[in-house]
């Protein structure tokens, strides 16, 4: 059974002129233990899609769908308060820049125990024990001592590990990771991807992994959806999609990325010709 099931998601952003249809009918299905990659360029609607699922978009933006279920919970029927209970508990998000997603004036321990208290209402000691366990699990050395540090005292890689630990704290069914390794160095990126993959396996998490980087998605996702202009234009198992891209846009996207072994003058990078107005929404 699917952990997350979304049918015909539409997101419309009001502007001074014509409303902008940032997402125009997207379906998403992720099962336990599965990683779905969503790739696409700026403005394709990939981040807006994830924000809509988490219900993190500002109220003036309209979100509609035929169906949006987390397990057997109908997310469309949830009030704001109920959604606040679900976020961070049953589904959690990992963002690109942990420096902006973490609170700079609270210690790591305080942030983690507040999240725990919000959803689990346990004692502070239990919360801190859970935090130490997870910090240890995500590979942070000396986790107990790290509870007292502030985000700026950690390197980018460690901060991203803290974010992952916080996302996992309440043992969610679904994790949405939006460009979680884009701000990291390549060696750190590889470590974080391996960590996410192994956590996902051991906990049977459903994961949506959003990235502009096809190489990264190829490494972590089993199935991929390619988005363009607010729609899913292509999709399938990762090997098939990359090996035999069917849709012209996927082919163009793949051919525009330099691959190992390619040299300028001998190999040509493909260009993408815009066939349709891509929305200018930030993603």
């Amino acid at each position: 059974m699917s952990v997350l099931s979304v049918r015909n998601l539409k997101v419309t952003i009001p502007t001074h002129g014509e409303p902008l249809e940032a997402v125009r009918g997207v379906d998403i299905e992720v099962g336990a233990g599965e990683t779905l990659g969503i790739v696409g360029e700026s403005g394709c609607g990939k981040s807006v899609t994830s924000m809509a699922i988490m219900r993190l978009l500002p109220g003036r933006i309209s979100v509609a769908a035929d169906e949006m279920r987390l397990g057997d919970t109908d997310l469309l029927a949830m009030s704001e308060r109920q959604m606040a209970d679900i976020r961070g508990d049953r589904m959690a998000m990992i963002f690109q820049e942990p420096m902006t997603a973490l609170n700079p004036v609270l210690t790591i321990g305080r942030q983690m125990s507040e999240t725990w208290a919000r959803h689990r209402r346990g004692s502070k000691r239990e919360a801190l024990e859970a935090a130490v366990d997870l910090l240890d699990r995500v590979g942070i050395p000396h986790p107990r001592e790290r509870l007292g540090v502030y985000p700026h005292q950690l390197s980018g890689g460690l901060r991203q590990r803290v974010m992952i630990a916080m996302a996992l704290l309440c043992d969610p069914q679904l994790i949405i990771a939006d460009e979680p390794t884009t701000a990291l160095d390549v060696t750190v990126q590889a470590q974080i991807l391996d960590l996410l993959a192994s956590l996902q396996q051991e906990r049977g998490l459903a994961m949506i992994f959003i990235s502009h980087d096809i190489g990264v998605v190829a490494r972590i996702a089993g199935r991929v959806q390619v988005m363009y202009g607010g729609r899913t234009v292509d999709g399938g198992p990762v090997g098939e999609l990359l090996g035999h891209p069917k849709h012209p846009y996927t082919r163009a996207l793949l051919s525009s990325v330099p691959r190992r072994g390619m040299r300028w003058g001998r190999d040509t990078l493909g260009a993408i010709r815009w066939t349709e107005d891509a929305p200018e929404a930030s993603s």
Partner: protein
Amino acid sequence: MSEKVMSDIVMELRDVRRTYRIGGGMFGKPRDLHALDGVSLQLRRGEVLALVGESGSGKSTLSRILLGLEAPSSGEVFLDGAPVASIRRRAFAARVQPVFQDPYSSLNPRKTVRQIIEAPLVIAGGVAASERLRRVRELLDILRMPERMLEAYPSQMSGGQRQRVAIARALISRPEIVVCDEPTSALDVSVQAEVLNLLMELRAEFGLTYLFISHDLAVVEYIADRVAVMQSGRLVEVADAEALFAAPQHDYTRRLLASALTVPAASPDT
């Protein structure tokens, strides 16, 4: 450049060190951070020399020293055989120009495209307004940007267009060297392809030498003639690009190459 013979080496660093004093604050003991720890490097005329390494390896300090934005704590920098310290600031700036990573923050939002591109000439002085405009127009044409862009503001442009404006600004003073610091990292992949092609075409057209800083090893392999690998303020390996990617010598280079995630080549099963 009177009697000077144009040599193969356009710029050279000899045993350059740059040290920052950090910490200290109220209680801490200040200590020295060796951002560059004895770097010697030659930039050959007309080449694309890529500089790779992770955050904190000293890449940006090295590029700031090449651009003359910072002086080395010790060691020497030469431009066409002359010590950089002996070259007047404005003359130096006209010969070595930067293209930065983020076209959203590196362009003044309150200036028009024309004003942004001609700024290096205005600062250098001695070029009449009509000649400046002629050169701006010529560059827009080369960069395949419509003339109506002249009076546009950066906020009205896409990322790719902005990066072209940044490239035009770098080229207007007809520099010998362009230091590109992650010039395509903030761009979409399709736009990246376009900017890379453009940079390579311009190299031939203007006889440019590039120092190209990037974390993307596939991009580096695609365009670089030589690659310099930095770790903790030192160059651990400098080699021809094809040799380096085929047989990396240093352990750290091997580790970097192993971590790089690129699109697997098209194949039936992955």
